[in-house]
């Protein structure tokens, strides 16, 4: 628990550190907003329509492949920690796991799903 005390305290300090200058900036900086100044910046062109434009499915696919890889790599961390203790068989089991991961990658690349369009 001692380890985590430090992290909790550090997280509080780390949140306060950037918060303070922003609040100071809000306090001592001028606050003279007007309609033009607060307008959405689009290089001088007046904004029109919703901000929430239609996004491509491609964004979803990147995040999806990332999620799957993330979860699988997380499985590999305990395996890596135990690596020195494992027999050859155990290491090969991990290798089979990695190969399954590689299959997922090969599938997505072959189906051209990871191409930015």
């Amino acid at each position, binding site marked *: 628990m*001692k*380890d*985590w*005390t*430090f*992290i909790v*305290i*550090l*997280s*509080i*300090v*780390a949140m306060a*550190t*950037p*918060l303070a*200058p*922003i609040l100071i*900036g*809000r306090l*001592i*900086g*001028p606050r*003279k*907003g007007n309609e033009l100044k*607060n*307008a*959405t*910046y*689009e*290089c001088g062109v007046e*904004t029109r329509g919703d*901000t929430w*434009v239609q996004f491509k499915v491609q*964004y979803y696919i*990147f*995040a999806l*492949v*990332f999620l799957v*890889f*993330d979860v699988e*790599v*997380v499985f590999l*961390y305990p395996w*890596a*920690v135990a*690596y*020195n203790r*494992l027999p*050859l068989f155990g*290491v*090969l089991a991990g*290798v089979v796991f990695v190969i399954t*991961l*590689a299959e997922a*990658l090969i599938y*997505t*690349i072959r189906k051209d799903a*990871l*191409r*930015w369009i």
Partner: protein
Amino acid sequence: MPDLFTVIDDWLVSLLTGWGASGLILDIILSLIGSLVVVGYLLTLALFIIWFERKVVARIQDRIGPNRVGPWGLFQNVADVLKLMTKEIVIPSGADLIPFLLAPVIATATVLMLWAVLPFTRNAIGTDVSIGVLYLAAVSSLGFMSILMAGWSSNNKYALLGAFRAVAMLVSYEVPLILMLLIPVLLTGSMRINAIVEAQSIWYVFSMPLAALIFYIANHAEVARSPFDLLEAESEIVAGYHIEYSGMAFATFYLAEFLHAFTISALTATLFLGGWRGPFVDQVPTLGIVYFFIKSFAVYFVNVWARGTLPRLRIDQIMDFCWKLLVPVSLLLLVLTVIADKTALQFFSGYSVGGTAIEMLPRSAVLFGVNLLVAGIAVVSLAQQGRRDREADLYPETAVD
């Protein structure tokens, strides 16, 4: 000779115990002092590294850089911060105030929190948690949310587009990053950062140069600097997700970016360049902090160098580079490394997985060979791919596909 930091720590403990603090209260006070020291030193360092970067980039571009405020322009950033303090933080109409102001705070806080597990010397480490490496990965993935928050709360199409591009790129490069974070864990058999440093009697950059390179590139992309800075591609999406930020709110994002750039350099130095290790560090542990900073600044210089010289890539090139080169190479490297290492351990006596540099030499040689092999495979397949692409360009009608 005892470590300077141990001496200070012991002195503080005895002082506080003398004042009647004990148990958890003592821990809390010590942690508070420790965090204030870490954060304070990082903020001071930030002023210096921003100056350093501006100077180096200026030299690369044949300019002089900041040279007016203080000697060699050292205090330019202090002046900049003071000026930005007095500037208005414009809240664009339709923005969501709380997420809008929280985003830069989270961005900076995550970077500061990465330093909780980085050791300066053998004893000067914030806390050596048992999941050190995974802690780094987890905390840096908190940053995605701040980018999404910034992009969404600005109520600006470009900010939103920039944020989503940024997240798509950052999550892509997170994959080779966490795969290559596995390598030091694998070779050390522990996720503690200090254990990883201790185990590097031969730096991992010598036994696993390819892993170090991929780790560094992925980290470079995580900071989103040139050549990976398309999330602030001015010509396409103006300034990306921090387009609507001004005054101190912008300065905080700026601070987070520079600190992150230095943090990844320190990470690379710790995980692959032996951290605080160096000559005479066993006799004089305090020297570790000198080695740590020399290595970190060496890596940071490479970072600034790349930023100053390389042009920006297109987003499809960046994504292809990650998914079609870095990730397959990382997977291949991982598989071949464990197979070669375990097989060598089974069949050669004198193959040691720990100990002094001499004892580690056979293992490093084997791993280096594996790295060379994988690098060779990558280069050959890239060359073949390039030839196929060129032929498809030259003779489109005879192309296979």
